[in-house]
């Protein structure tokens, strides 16, 4: 056990001796107020967690899009395009015959 562990154990052991109060009952009127408020609220969308992730995903996708354009900038604006050989394998075979 290093010095920090010893110090932390000592402090935390002492802190644990300070008992917090017993679990209290809810304050008067609290449950009624919460139940009434809940009754007026619509159910949460099951997608609520997904929406948070989706927003982050959208931002990441946008950043990737910008990065892709930035890295390919010269090709886009130089007017040069890669020319792919459009070969027809079946045609080539027929030509050979």
């Amino acid at each position, binding site marked *: 056990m290093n010095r*920090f562990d*010893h*110090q*932390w154990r*000592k*402090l*935390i052991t*002492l*802190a*644990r*001796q*300070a008992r*917090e109060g017993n*679990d*209290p*009952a*809810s*304050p008067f009127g*609290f*449950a*009624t*107020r*919460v*139940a*009434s*408020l*809940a*009754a007026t*609220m*619509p*159910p*949460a969308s*099951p997608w609520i967690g997904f929406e948070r992730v989706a927003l982050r995903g959208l931002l990441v996708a946008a950043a990737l899009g910008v990065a892709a354009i930035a890295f390919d900038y010269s090709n886009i604006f130089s007017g040069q395009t890669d020319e792919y050989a459009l070969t027809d394998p079946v045609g080539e075979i027929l030509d050979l015959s």
Partner: protein
Amino acid sequence: MADDTFDLPGCLERVRRRDQVAARELVEHLYPLVIRIVRSHLPRRVAEEDLAQDIFLKMFTRLEQYQGAVPFPHWVSRIAVTTCIDQLRAQKRRPEFRWADLSENEAEVLDNVLTDAHDVLPGDALAARELVYKLLDQLKPEDRLVIQLLDLEQKTIAEISARTGWNQTLVKVRAFRARRKLQKLFRELQGKEKS
């Protein structure tokens, strides 16, 4: 939560049918559980009753999503933990930890712990607890929660995992990270002059 005779499944069923009395009973039944979590993770300047109310409202609005995969109190405690963490995150800044922010008792306890000069007295327990909370305030909300449950409340890794929904490896990683940060904090405090 002390009432073992409480018919939780029956109550939930009635709440789903929009029974206001059942909703009140559910709040009263779960209040001790929720307020315990709120108090142990209470963000500064946030009234505990307001935070507890937020947690219960989330519970009611998401009730249809509860599938029974975990016990209902665990499901509610996860909502409570997430709400507290969100609240802590919203506050963003944790002020720098300084000797000057400590009360006389807290500074004395810290001094005794750091210098190991002499044993602290049992009467210093409250000051020690406040001091621990102030130290934990310096951690990320998730890390703080893990250390609090692990060291203060002496929960096992499995129990923390159940309460938070984090897997056990993540809990261990967070505990390790938190202890490293606390160690750094202790070193800094030892290096600083007690004003």
